[in-house]
């Protein structure tokens, strides 16, 4: 398949701070390409440069073979973009919101296109209601169809589901898959492993402005191991002891992560029960133990030394709090 977007070693510096530090990737026509990384990784900055609304410090971006700055107008007609924050004019009706952008793209039959978009967004009944009165999910759908009003070949979605509840998230996934099926090339950024795993043909994992790995979900998972993953959650103070036992007694290659110990392992129940027996004998408190296939989180841990969720800080602090309460 031909590459529709080629990003070549782009760098963005804000003063001394390098937000995007030499990123290179290509996006194939018709695929869903995911950029996965925690908050502050540089996803939005990279997207803004691809869109041409933020100048690169160095590097180049080709879209459909054209330089994205030199051929800005042609490229802007070709790309649709939905920002991380929902952007609709709260004071205007859904119809007017769409009409303004249809006009800015010089669409011929504005009314029928707007009505079509409202139908796509499931907003036909709310055409003449102010967008400000909509629920978060409805505003997001309006935002999505607005960014597609000119039927772009390429759609860029910056964290399309952040802040949505589960129902609206699943709905958004369905919409994105349907778009790809219709031949639209989609680039999306996300902090959610499941989202990247479920939705994206290929994923670039990005952290601190650098691509750590790039490939299909299964390619990335193979980076960790061809085998399964042993996952033990324990007391923070016991992590070292667990590691020592696993590596000495069972010759496993362990990675530690605060209160968690992981190691590639054969999916073998007998081995697992031996490990449990050994840990019990050593009087180590185990919070959870299990074997699972590698996940993108394992990939992330291996590549960056910390879990994506840990980078986000949420689960980690929750767990710490719960454990402190138990003491």
């Amino acid at each position, binding site marked *: 398949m031909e590459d529709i977007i080629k990003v070549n070693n782009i760098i963005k510096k804000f003063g001394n701070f390098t937000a995007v530090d030499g990123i290179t990737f290509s996006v194939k026509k018709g695929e869903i390409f995911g950029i996965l990384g925690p908050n502050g990784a540089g996803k939005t900055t990279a997207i803004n440069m691809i869109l041409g609304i933020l100048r690169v410090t160095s590097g180049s971006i080709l879209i459909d073979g054209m330089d994205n700055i030199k051929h800005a*107008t042609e490229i802007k007609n070709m790309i649709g973009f939905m920002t991380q924050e929902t*952007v609709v004019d709260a004071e205007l009706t859904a119809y*007017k919101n769409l009409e303004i952008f249809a006009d*800015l793209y010089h669409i011929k039959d504005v009314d029928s296109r707007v009505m079509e978009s409202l139908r796509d967004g499931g907003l036909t009944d709310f055409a003449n209601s102010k967008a400000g009165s909509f629920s978060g999910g409805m505003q997001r759908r309006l935002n999505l169809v607005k960014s597609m009003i000119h039927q772009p070949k390429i759609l860029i979605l910056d964290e399309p589901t952040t802040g949505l509840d589960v129902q609206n998230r699943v709905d958004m996934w369905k919409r994105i898959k349907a778009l790809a099926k219709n031949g639209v090339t989609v680039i999306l950024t996300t902090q959610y492993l499941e989202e990247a795993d479920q939705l994206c043909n290929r994923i670039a994992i990005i952290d601190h402005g650098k691509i750590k790995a790039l490939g299909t979900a299964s390619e990335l998972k193979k980076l960790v191991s061809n085998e399964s993953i042993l996952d033990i959650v324990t007391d923070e103070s016991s992590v070292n002891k667990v590691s020592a036992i696993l590596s000495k007694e069972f010759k496993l290659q362990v990675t530690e992560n605060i209160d968690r110990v992981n190691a590639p392992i054969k999916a073998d129940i007998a081995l697992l029960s031996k490990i449990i027996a050994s840990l019990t004998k050593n009087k180590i408190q185990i919070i959870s133990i299990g074997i699972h296939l590698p996940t993108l989180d394992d990939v992330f841990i291996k590549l960056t030394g910390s879990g994506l969720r840990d980078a986000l800080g949420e689960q980690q602090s929750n767990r710490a709090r719960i454990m402190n309460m138990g003491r």
Partner: protein
Amino acid sequence: MMGIENTFIDAYTIFRREMLVFKSNIRANTARALIFPLIILIFFGNLGSTSSNVPIAVVNLANNPQSLQFINTLESHSAVSIKAITNENSAMTMLGSGSVYVVLVIAPDFGSPSSSATSIYEYYSSSDITDAGSALSFIQLQASNFGAHIISRSSVQSLSLPSATSSAVKEVSLSGTKASYEEFLVAGVLAMIVVFGTMFGGGFSVITDRQLGTMKAFFITPVTKTSIILGKMFSGTLQAVLYVIVTLIIAFMLGSSVAMGIIGIVWIFLLSFVVALGFSALSIALAANLKKVELYAIIANVFTLPLWFLSGAFFPASSMPAWMRVINAVDPLTYAVNGIRSIMLNGTYPLSMIALQFSVLIGFAIVMFVICLKSFKNTI
């Protein structure tokens, strides 16, 4: 050519969007833009037209029957209260200490039939301008009955009596027998409405659009920054002209009138339109590189309040010290205020004024538009 055509089509789209947003919030927007100027008009204007017993001192150099009769007439009305009939020096001392607001010097030629020139000098302290304003217009009215012509000036620095032929003194703009301070103020308040209206309309929307992400949404469409600027300039301008219409209606209800009639009102709209274009562009240029509304509000005030004060909106340019008069002369708002005042008070708008004022204001708008284009970036 297609490019230029699209620029205007897109500008119209942006304009429509701005006006839709404006319309959806019209009451709050109007209140926000009108409240301060209207308070000034109602409070200060009424202070001017109703305040009575304004203390004045009279220096009667003519000392003839006509001058005595003139003083009697002043005394018989409650608009002014004559505190002293004395010599120049003590009168000026009284003015300096604030015990009187106006000093009236009746020149020796007062009442003489041959004298068509100046015969009364008024001195007032600019700190008492609102009270002095009503006294001045009242005195003017009475003086005109005696065929006397009035020369006024602020006495802040000058305590010396001018000679009858002195060219250093200037006529205050309170001409026309019906003029009241309120009517004097209307032109200045209209100018203020335009400035406030454009600051809320143009630059303010640039910042909120940037904060809410709408600007980014515009930038990813093929729309050019020229179209965005033009759309916002003209929507800010139309909003300001709408505020002017509302203010004029209120001023009429308060008893003001336009001496030039309907044609004059049309000229006032045209003047408001061109001055609003320039100030819309100014507000967009100020907002072009700002991210915070608070900072914009401060910077916009720093630019517009002095321009407004020094335009002669509030007190006549003749009462300003020399350095302020220089700023007054280069302040585009001055030209709008002078034009509107001539239309409202003198009832004429001579071609020479039209040519000067419109070329200054259109020139200002063009310069500001170019500065906008330079400072406004279509990147985030």
